[in-house]
């Protein structure tokens, strides 16, 4: 259906181009990719993607983008054959002080460089982590309005339909929020600056894109009785603030988000507690060919008693699915970007959870072979105890190679 929508939009673009004399261009790329599971020696992804990206405009007030991926992954099991997936498809209307963007789009929030607590609008596709953001983030259908004044910008985003993260779920029934007015997601952001410090405040009302467990009573037909559980997406409210300030070869960036959930008194183990996530980062351009980003981040659960949480989980016989998290967690991350050789970029990313002792590393080398042609090879490693966030993925270590020809 989405593919049909895109094709319709593309056709509309072509027709309007022909009829109205507007300008349109076709860009895109072809990418051959191979993702090898480091442990099993089998390919998790092996195939080719062809992307077409139509862009056009009608004067200075109307423009549009329609991008479509044609994926053929021979390693997918079962094989879906040729998959046609829309990436972005939106129309942008621009006036002197207002931009209105309608359609399937990316809306990324947050000023920090790598971890963005306030970046909640576009869900994640954890099955397609790669060097390109459009692989692992999912565009959403939205009405995005931005109003520009000389001293500030105001943004309002309305997202009518909920889209969840793509994540390996436990084998439980899954319920999505119904698409109706009551479940419409809303995001508001106010951006400005003081001196040389850029800052913004944000508010989001919607759903946690990662599912949580809902308890549906005990199944007494079984011996011993087992709980009836299902996965659902809980409502959340988020308040956020961020800033960025450059000081010569340094840029200091910070971001914090407060998430408010339905667990008002903090006693329900099935609903995530209110929490604050914060990141403080430093970007350091050591030279034109070498830069370093370091970040410290932390999460603090509010109204939370770990012992009480443990007891409640035991009472519900939900220990197989739930754990009582620590009240505070923190992580350190670093990203090094270097132009190691002419036309070659090396990027190393490492994230370390201090409390759980788990870590994640991504390294990739990209070679600009010739104009419009690049070759990227990389390694993705997870490490840590089996119960930790990265430790759970430790069998998903991957090495990959991509060759991309852009046009």
């Amino acid at each position, binding site marked *: 259906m989405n593919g049909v929508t895109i094709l319709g939009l593309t056709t509309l673009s072509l027709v309007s181009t022909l009829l109205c004399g507007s300008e349109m261009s076709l*860009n895109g*790329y072809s990418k051959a990719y191979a993702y090898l599971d480091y442990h099993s020696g089998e390919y998790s992804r092996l195939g080719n993607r062809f992307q077409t990206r139509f862009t056009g405009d009608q004067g200075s007030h109307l423009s549009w*983008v329609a991008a479509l991926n044609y994926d053929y992954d021979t390693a997918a099991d079962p094989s879906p054959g040729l998959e046609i997936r829309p990436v972005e498809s939106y129309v942008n209307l621009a006036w002197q002080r207002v*931009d209105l963007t309608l359609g399937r789009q*990316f809306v*990324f929030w947050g*000023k920090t*460089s790598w971890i963005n607590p306030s970046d909640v609008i576009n869900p994640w596709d954890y099955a397609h982590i790669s060097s*390109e*953001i*459009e692989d692992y983030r999912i565009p959403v259908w939205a009405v995005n309005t*931005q109003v*520009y004044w000389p001293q500030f*910008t105001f943004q309002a985003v309305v997202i009518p339909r909920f889209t969840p993260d793509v994540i390996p779920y436990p084998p439980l029934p899954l319920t999505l929020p119904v698409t109706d007015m009551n479940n419409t997601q809303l995001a508001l952001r106010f951006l400005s600056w003081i001196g*040389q410090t*850029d800052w913004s405040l944000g508010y989001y009302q919607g759903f946690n894109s990662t599912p949580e467990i809902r308890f549906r009573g005990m199944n007494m037909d079984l011996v011993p009785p087992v709980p009836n559980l299902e996965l659902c997406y809980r409502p959340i409210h988020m308040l956020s603030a961020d800033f*960025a*300030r*450059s*000081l*010569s*070869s*340094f*840029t200091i*960036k910070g971001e914090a988000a407060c998430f408010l959930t339905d667990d008002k008194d903090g006693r329900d183990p099935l609903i995530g507690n209110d929490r604050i996530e914060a990141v403080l980062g430093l*970007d*350091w*351009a*050591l*030279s*034109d060919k070498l*830069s370093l980003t370091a970040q410290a981040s932390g999460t603090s659960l509010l109204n939370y008693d770990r012992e009480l949480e443990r007891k409640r989980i035991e009472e519900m016989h939900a220990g197989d699915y739930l754990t009582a998290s620590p009240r505070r967690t923190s992580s350190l991350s670093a990203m090094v970007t270097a*132009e190691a050789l*002419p*036309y070659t970029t090396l990027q190393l990313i490492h994230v370390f959870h201090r409390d759980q002792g788990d870590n994640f590393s991504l390294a990739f080398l990209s070679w*600009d072979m*010739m*104009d*419009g*042609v*690049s070759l990227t090879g990389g390694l993705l490693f997870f490490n840590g105890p089996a119960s930790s966030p990265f430790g759970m993925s430790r069998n998903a270590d991957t090495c990959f190679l991509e060759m*991309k020809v*852009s*046009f």
Partner: protein
Amino acid sequence: MKKILYSILIAASLISMANAADEKASGIMKAVLGGESWTSMTADVKLVLTNSRGEKRERELAFYSAEDGKGFSRLLMRFTAPADVKGTGFLTLETASGTDERYLYLPARRRISKISSSGGGGNFMSSDFSYYDIGKPEYEDWTYSYLGEKEYQGHACHVIEALPARSDILDDTGYGKIEYWIDKDAMHTLFAKYYDENLAGLKTLEVLDYFREGGREFAADMLMVNESIGHSSRMTFTHIKLNEGVDDAVFSPRFLQMGR
């Protein structure tokens, strides 16, 4: 006693000659840099990078530059080719504090990032040109000495040495010294040698063509060679429009991300 007197006279005469040479150099550079100039410019830029193995990469950019109402420069550049970097935009705003505000838009990330400068002038789009090189040099930033006359490709030239007038200029540009070959007739730079803070040779500039309009002049075709790494960059400006004004809205994050 006589010896001391002679020494003082010789020293005084040398100082006087040196002062005269410095005044001559300053006068020439004032004429070169202080002539009728531009306050805004738009152009298309072609950048050809060549490495030590002779491998070339071509970049095309749309270039917008203008001063704000307070005399601070603003610059926005957006890649138009090749396809894999098309839409990448860079915005730099000069501020009263002396630290430029710099923003980068990467279409692949769909996000504008505030970025820091790397110091030492920072290289322009991975080329051998620094951001300082492509900006408008300020006469007051340097002190000048006259080194003599030399010929460059059949043109009689004044050779002038420029040293940073202040430590922040050295920090900002990374140049400990620049030698200019100024065409005596046309009174513009034909060739320049750049030295690092330790006065070791860094790179050379050859101006291949000038754009002229209404008494204004602009180096429109330049070749910068970094001999130490065998890399060179040729930057050619076309479709140049000087002093026709650039809308203030161009120098904004909103316009920066329109390359999407």
